[in-house]
């Protein structure tokens, strides 16, 4: 589904991704861990097409297409989804209107029927159950005045509505209390299936207690320096990152 080869990207003059390789197949869940500033969010945003990042080398093949040549909104319609580490607020636009617009854009793209507000409401009510979200959030402006945890839950609601092929969840577990963590993790598990793939960016093993990854990778200074199974996450939790850093590297 996704093949990242020797990816390099910079923001301003600063190179952040320095030759990154990663292969993700349908049905897989990958966890990416790594110290602050190692480039995890950068990778997520480059995959989603954020205009501030400049790709300086390498390639990304998504479902047989050169992902880097596709506009960000088109990538989304093609099934790429990013749950943001810091979701933005959109005052004055209700969650319901926003979600319906996003849903319909994708439906149009896929050649499915667009939904009117009433039809969409049915779908929304059903998807809201996945993240145990209260109806009051639906008529509120997107993320406006939401708590940190509510914003994260709202990201997963969007995922539930859009049903992406490739979902990249950037620290969706950060800032969640234990109940919210369980709800979000259960939601993600319900959405995972053999036809889609999920990349989880996280700092904590605790999320991986709920969502079992097939692979765990360590991103360090813009490269994936170690990959393994879920036991790698346990080792990282215990020993930190020091033992993994390539010889001669300093933090």
């Amino acid at each position, binding site marked *: 589904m996704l093949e990242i080869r020797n990816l390099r990207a910079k923001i301003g003059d600063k190179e952040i991704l320095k030759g990154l390789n990663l292969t993700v197949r349908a049905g897989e869940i990958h966890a990416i861990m790594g110290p602050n500033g190692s480039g995890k969010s950068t990778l997520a945003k480059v995959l989603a097409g*954020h205009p501030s990042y400049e790709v300086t080398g390498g390639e990304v093949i998504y479902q047989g297409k050169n992902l880097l040549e596709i506009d960000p909104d088109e*990538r*989304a319609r093609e099934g790429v989804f990013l749950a*943001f580490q810091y979701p933005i607020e959109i005052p*004055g*636009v209700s969650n319901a209107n926003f979600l319906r*617009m996003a849903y319909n*854009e*994708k439906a149009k793209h896929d050649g499915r029927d667009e939904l009117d507000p009433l039809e969409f409401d049915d779908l929304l009510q059903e998807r809201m159950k996945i993240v145990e979200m209260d109806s009051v959030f639906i008529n509120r*402006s997107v993320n406006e005045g939401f708590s940190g945890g509510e914003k994260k839950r709202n990201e997963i609601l969007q995922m539930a509505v859009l049903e992406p092929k490739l979902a990249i969840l950037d620290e969706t577990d950060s800032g969640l209390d234990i109940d919210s963590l369980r709800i979000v993790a259960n939601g993600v598990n319900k959405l995972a299936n053999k036809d889609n793939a999920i990349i989880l960016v996280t700092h904590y093993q605790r999320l991986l207690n709920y969502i079992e990854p097939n692979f765990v990778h360590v991103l360090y200074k813009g490269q994936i320096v170690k990959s393994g199974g879920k036991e790698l996450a346990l080792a990282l939790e215990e020993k930190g990152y020091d033992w993994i850093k390539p010889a001669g590297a300093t933090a």
Partner: protein
Amino acid sequence: MAQVAKEKNSNFSAYKILAGMREGMDPAWLAALRAKAGARFEEIDFPTTRNEEWKYTNVAPILKVPYREIFDLDADGLTVERIAPFTFVESRHSQMVFINGIYSKELSDLSGLPESAVVTSLAGMTEEQALVASRHLAAYAKYQDDAFTALNTAHIGDGALVYIPGGKIVETPVHVIFISTSEEASATHPRVLIIAGKGAMATIIESYVSTEDNVYLTNAVTEVFAAEESAITHYRLQEESEKAFHVATTQVHQERESNYVSYAFSLGAEIARHTLNVVLTDEHTDTTIDGLYVVTGKQHVDNHTTMDHSKPNCTSHQLYKGILDGKSRAVLKGKVLVREGALLTEAHQLNKNLLLSKDSSVDTKPQLEIFADDVKCSHGATVGQLEDDELFYLASRGIAPEQARALLTFGFAEDVISKIKLKSVRKQLDKTVLDKLHQSLDLE
């Protein structure tokens, strides 16, 4: 100066004709008021940009047009059906329609109003109504130092009186519509007087629209008197032709424990100026003045507001937002004056602007003058563009750039529009704002 005086004489002397035409038809006090204002108008000059209050708005283009004055009603083929787009379902049977400044009884419909509400044209007042009006007309909007107000006052013949006597609650909103239809440049001087007696409650919509995309001048003055414990909600919808000039003053006088809410929308006119002054004369009043201006092309919009706190325990809130595109320009000067003795005043003011183009610009000057202790005041102004991160967030959900810009811009405006309780006014504004920005959204 000689030149200004000449322009004044040639372009703005119709009030002399009007005085002759209305001789014997109006109460003596009204004729005298007109004469005094006319005389004063002769003595003073129109403002120039050297005048601090007009620093950013040059009225010279407004003054050089040779306007045609209209004294008689000519409905110009307008029918109830044709004016329907300018009206609202909530006030279909409580609307006063003025065509080029003249009251049209045929197009107006006041059948939905209770007996207790006095809604009449100034030219058609009974003696009793005139007595009430005489106590308030020109009592708040001072014409002595303002040529536009003096000119308007010298022209008072027709106009709207909305008087809700003490203790009466009028649920139905009253809509006062000024429609410009003239194909030749006309100058009209709409006058509105709103009086809420003790404990009275009313909603008034004041709108300015046109059927022709033409040059003309609207020089409007509205006075609002809110007696103690009264509550007035006042919508002002300025949707003139984009070639027109609109100069207006709204002067509000609030007494003890009264509540005044103003939503002022400025969408039309090539040059628009609205001066909104609220004077709080006693304790425990509450005031909200919100506004939205959306300008494109070469439009210039200037809002000058003053909240004048002179007594303790009064609260005021102001939120003005602006969206600018093309080569448009906006001016906002918002003064909050907390006079000596106005203890425990709470006054908040915020102006936010969204620039959609590189060539648009804003001069915003929030101004807080505090001469009392123990007050809670804040003010601020922002000028920004749509942020990359906002656009990216929407893109990442599959929303195309055009749509994303429309949605964010709409959201920005919605902050003010969504406060409107009248649904059809809200819907109409949503549509007008999007149309104006050449955007469309499929929203609920």
